[in-house]
C-alpha cells in the first residue's frame, strides 16, 4: 500500500499543478466579474507557445534554459490571447460565455493551423521537458520527504509560490480589495473611485497568463508534445474553481482532490489493487462532484455576484 501511494503521489502532484495554476487564473478573472470559460483555449495557446519556443531554441541552447524561456513565452502568449476576451467582455459588453467559447475554438484551430505550417503534422515534439529533482535535506524526512520532496518539478514550487502570492494579493492588498469589489458590486466600486475597466482588464490578463503557464507546464511535465488540445483540463480547472468556491485555498483542495482522482483513474488499469474501482466512476467523479456542489451551495454560493454581467457605467 505504502509503495503504491509513494508511486502514485508524484503523478498526482504533476497532474494537479497545471490545474491549480489555471484555476487560480480563473479565480482572478471571475472574482473581478468576468466569467472565463476560455481557460481551456488559453491553456492550448500556452502549450503551443511553449512548444514552439522550445522546438526552435532546442538546437541552439541547453534544454533546461529553453524550457524556462518556453514557459515564459506560454504565460505571455496566454496573457496576450486573453486580451481578445477582455476586449469583448469589458469594452463591448459581449456575452462572456460566447466570447469564451470563441476563444476555445479559435485556440484549438489556430494553433494547429500554425503548427502545421511549422512541422507539417500539427504536433510539435520537444526533446524533453523538465527533470524531476530531489530537494536536498527535506527529502530525507521520513514519509513527508518521500511524498513531497522527492522527484519534484521546479514548476510545482513555482506554482505554489504563485498561489501564495495570489492569496496575498487578493486578500491583503488594495488591488485585491478593488478586484473583489468589482466582482461583487461594480457600481459601488466605481462610485468609490475604482476604475472597474482597468481592474477587470488586469484580472483577465492575469487569468490568461496563468492559464497559458498551466498549458506550458502541462507540456514540459506530462505531455512532452503539443497536440492541439489539453484534453479538457481547462474545463476541469473551471470545475475546481467552482468546487473550491472561488477561494485560493479552496481551489488548492479541489485541484488536489481532482488530481488524485484522475491519476488513480489513469493508472488503475495497470495496478491490480485499483482495478476494483471502475475507471469511469473515477473519471466522471470531478464533474459529478461539481454538480453536487453547485446544488449543495446553491443557497449559500460564494460565487462573485456580478460575474458574467457586463459593466455599464450609466446603468443603475
Amino acid at each position, binding site marked *: 500500500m505504502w509503495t503504491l501511494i509513494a508511486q502514485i503521489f508524484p503523478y498526482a502532484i504533476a497532474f494537479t499543478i497545471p490545474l491549480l495554476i489555471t484555476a487560480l487564473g480563473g479565480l482572478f478573472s471571475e472574482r473581478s466579474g468576468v466569467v472565463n470559460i476560455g481557460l481551456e483555449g488559453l491553456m492550448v495557446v500556452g502549450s503551443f507557445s511553449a512548444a514552439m519556443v522550445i522546438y526552435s531554441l532546442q538546437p541552439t541552447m541547453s534544454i533546461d534554459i529553453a524550457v524556462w524561456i518556453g514557459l515564459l513565452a506560454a504565460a505571455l502568449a496566454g496573457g496576450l490571447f486573453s486580451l481578445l476576451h477582455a476586449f469583448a467582455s469589458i469594452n463591448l459588453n459581449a456575452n462572456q460565455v460566447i466570447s469564451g467559447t470563441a*476563444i476555445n475554438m479559435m485556440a484549438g*484551430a489556430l494553433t494547429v493551423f500554425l503548427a502545421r505550417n511549422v512541422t507539417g503534422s500539427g504536433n510539435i515534439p520537444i526533446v524533453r521537458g523538465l527533470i524531476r529533482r530531489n530537494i536536498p535535506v527535506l527529502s530525507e524526512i521520513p514519509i513527508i520527504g518521500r511524498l513531497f520532496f522527492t522527484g519534484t518539478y521546479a514548476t510545482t514550487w513555482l506554482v505554489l509560490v504563485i498561489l501564495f502570492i495570489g492569496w496575498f494579493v487578493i486578500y491583503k492588498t488594495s488591488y485585491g480589495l478593488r478586484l473583489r469589489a468589482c466582482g461583487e458590486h461594480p457600481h459601488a466600486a466605481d462610485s468609490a473611485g475604482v476604475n472597474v475597466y482597468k481592474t477587470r482588464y488586469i484580472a483577465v490578463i492575469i487569468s490568461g497568463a496563468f492559464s497559458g503557464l498551466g498549458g506550458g507546464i502541462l507540456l514540459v511535465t506530462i505531455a512532452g508534445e503539443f497536440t492541439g488540445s489539453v484534453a479538457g483540463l481547462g474545463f476541469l480547472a473551471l470545475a475546481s474553481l467552482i468546487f473550491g468556491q472561488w477561494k485560493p485555498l479552496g481551489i488548492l483542495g479541489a485541484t488536489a482532490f481532482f488530481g488524485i482522482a484522475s491519476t488513480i483513474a489513469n493508472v488503475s488499469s495497470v495496478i491490480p489493487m485499483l482495478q476494483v474501482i471502475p475507471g469511469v466512476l473515477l473519471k466522471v467523479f470531478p464533474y459529478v462532484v461539481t454538480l453536487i456542489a453547485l446544488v449543495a451551495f446553491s443557497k449559500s454560493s460564494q460565487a462573485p455576484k456580478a460575474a458574467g454581467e457586463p459593466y455599464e457605467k450609466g446603468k443603475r
Partner: protein
Amino acid sequence: MKLSILNKIPKSLIVSLLAVVFGLLAGALFMLFTGNNPFEGYTYLIRGGTMNIERLGNTLATASPLILTGLSVAFAFRTGLFNIGASGQMLFGGFCATAVALTLSAPKPILLLISVIAAGIGGALWGVVPGLLKSKFNVHEVVSSIMMNWIAYWVIYYAVPTYLKGAFLETESKKISHEASLRVDWLTNLFDGSYINLGLFIGIISVIVIAFILNKTVLGYELKSVGFNRYAAEYAGISVNKNIVLAMMISGALAGLAGAALYIGNASNIQIGILPPQGFDGIAVSLLGSNTPIGVLAAAIFFGLLYSGKGFMNAMTNIPPEIADTIIATIIYFAATSVLIEKGLDRLKKKRRGN
C-alpha cells in the same frame, strides 16, 4: 437611395453577413501570413464543396448535424438559456442510436425509427439535467452543461469498449450494418455515391417543426416570453420553471438527433475520446442564424460548405485544413461582439441622415 435599402434589410441579417465577411477576411489574413494565396485558397475551398453533385451531397451531409445542433442551441437561446452542452447531448444521443443499431434487428424503416427516437431520448435525458438543476436549484445552465459534456465524454469513453467494441480497435465501436444506417440507396445514387443520408431530412423536418412550435403554438409563445423577460412571464401566469425544463429537454433532444445524423448517418461507428465539435459549432450556427430556424438552416449549410471543402483545399494548396475551423471561430467572435458592428451601422445611418 442606399439608405432605404439599408433600412429594409433586418439589422440582424446585416450583422450576420458582416460577421461572415470579417471571418473570411481574417481567414485570408492567416493564409497570407503563412505565405499562401487567399484567392486560390477560397476558390479551392468553395470548389471542394460544390464542384460536382457528389461533393454537393457531402456538403449537405456535413451540414445535417450542424442544422440540428444549431437548432438545439437556438431553441434554448429563445427561452433565455445557453445550451453549451449540445456536444455532450449529441454524443450520448449518438451512442444510444449506435447501441440500438448494433443490437436490434428489424426491418430498416422500423430500425431507423427506433434508433432515431433513441437518439432523441438520449439527448433529451442529457439536456433535461441542466434544465432541472436550473429550475429547482437555480444552478447556472452553462456550468452544469459543461459538466454534463465531460460526463458524457467519459461515460462513452468507457461504455463503447465495454459494450460495443469493434473488431480491431479499442477506440471505436463496431461498424453498423447498411440496414441500420441512415444512408439509403436512392439518395446515394442520386448524389453519385455521396455519403448524404436521411439525416438531412431529419434536420429539415426539425427546422419546420421548431419554426411551427416557436411561431404558431402556445408553447412557443410561453417559451419566448420566458426568454424575453422571465419576471414578466411569471407575472403573466406562465410557469417559468416548467418552461425552462421543457426547453432544455427539447433542445437536448434536437442535439441527440444531431448525434444520430452524425454517428449512424455520416459515420458508421462511434469513436471515443472526442466531444463532437458540431455541438460547439451549433453555437456559431445559431448566432449567425440570429436564433431563427430558417437562419440556422442557411448558416449550417454555409459552415457545411467550409468544412466539406477544406479537404480539397488542403490537397490542392499548402493551406492546412484547420483554416475552416479558424474562420468559424472568428465568425463567432465577431457575432459575440456584434455590438461593435451595430454601433458602426448606427453611426453610418446617422451620417447618411445628416447629409
